[in-house]
């Protein structure tokens, strides 16, 4: 009967886990024990059998079965509309300002407003004093009619604010992108504007001088913008893009 120590050394050798002194110790055991040599040979063969036993192929559809059942978080927006995507420059100052504005404004809660029309007075939070006194002027409207996404975006100017009213419906998850930096604008806030539409709370992001909103289904929301320091001064275009599944689905611009 082999001692436990001898069995330990034989197994550890099989696993390549012996240090120099243990190798010497095993050599001495093997030198004096026929039984140890036989055990080493047998266990070594078993280990090789196991090591050499071939893998079997998983079912061909296993990967797709798993893919079909895994739910991941909603993807973060990825800026991929080539034309104006490429032209956008990071705007750390604007982004920092936008982040500050978001913190100070919080999330606006609108009680069943079918269309904003620039009525800032009903917002929770302070954006401007007596905003309802400001006259609203419609400037432009953009029809969105692309495979998988339909609706409109309108531009209204109200005092020093530029207000974009989005009313879109997408069959699949859509990423809506507004280029702020190249229009000389900075982000002021975003508000969900219809109880019939999906909330935009938590699905928007402002970074690198762009606003991105990722959502699916009917989306009615308003974006408040204002002139950035050194902005284009009111005659620029505001690029609007929509991507579906990472591919550009719509690209257009609103004119101020």
């Amino acid at each position, binding site marked *: 009967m082999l001692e436990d120590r001898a069995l330990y050394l034989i197994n550890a050798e099989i696993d390549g886990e012996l240090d120099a002194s243990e190798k010497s110790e095993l050599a001495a055991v093997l030198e004096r024990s026929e039984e140890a040599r036989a055990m080493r040979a047998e266990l070594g063969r078993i280990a090789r059998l*196991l090591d050499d036993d071939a893998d*079997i192929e998983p079912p061909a559809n296993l990967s797709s079965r798993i893919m079909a059942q895994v739910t991941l978080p909603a*993807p973060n927006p990825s800026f991929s509309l080539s034309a104006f995507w490429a032209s956008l420059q990071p705007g750390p100052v604007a982004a920092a300002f936008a982040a500050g504005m978001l913190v100070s404004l919080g999330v606006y809660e609108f009680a069943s407003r079918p269309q904003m029309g620039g009525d800032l007075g009903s917002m929770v939070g302070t954006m401007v004093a007596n905003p309802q006194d400001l006259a609203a002027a419609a400037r432009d409207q953009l029809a969105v009619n692309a495979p998988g996404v339909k609706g409109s975006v309108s531009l209204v100017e109200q005092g020093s604010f530029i207000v974009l009213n989005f009313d879109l419906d997408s069959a699949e998850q859509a990423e809506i992108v507004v280029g702020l930096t190249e229009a000389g604008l900075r982000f002021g806030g975003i508000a969900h504007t219809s109880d019939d539409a999906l909330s935009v709370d938590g699905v928007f992001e402002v970074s690198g001088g762009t606003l991105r909103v990722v959502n699916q289904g009917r989306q009615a929301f308003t974006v408040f913008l204002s002139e950035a320091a050194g902005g284009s001064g009111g005659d620029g275009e505001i690029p609007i893009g929509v991507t579906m599944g990472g591919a550009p689905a719509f690209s257009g611009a609103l004119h101020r």
Partner: protein
Amino acid sequence: MHKSRDQALVERCLKGDRQALEALIGEYQRPLFNAAYRILGNPEDAADATQAAFLKAFEHLASYDPKYKFFSWIYRIAVNEAINQFKRNRKQEELDESAVDSGPGPDLVADAGDLSREIQDGLMALTEDYRTVVVLRHYSDCSYREIGEILQIPEKTVKSRLFSARQLLRDHFVANGITI
């Protein structure tokens, strides 16, 4: 076992990137499936356990701690799924006297060599504790430390189980007249 690559893929998955999800599944479905198969002895059950492991892993992906290898983390989930499945099967067989043999399915039997089947029979003759360390060491090439991490047992216990399992396998082969 690409720690940094795996972690990058995990981060992308957490942002909803399904290509990263596909990459992780592609990387690990085969070793996880084979580990599950060696523990369960049945390819259909192994596929179910592998699928359940991936679903559980991605459901709890936010709780994955990147200071550990993703490989170890998802292996632990898969091995536990396989062991739990094995226990459920065993209970069911105890309840159902007419239970069919839980060995390899007909397709696998037709494809696998005799020796491979003998080895699998030998593995199935071990308790799941012993079988699991053998599978992780010899089929998944895990070190003692990795096996300890995956099974959450001390390395000393890993060695003890592995060494005993090899001798039990030897005894099984000798008792069944299998030349090794």
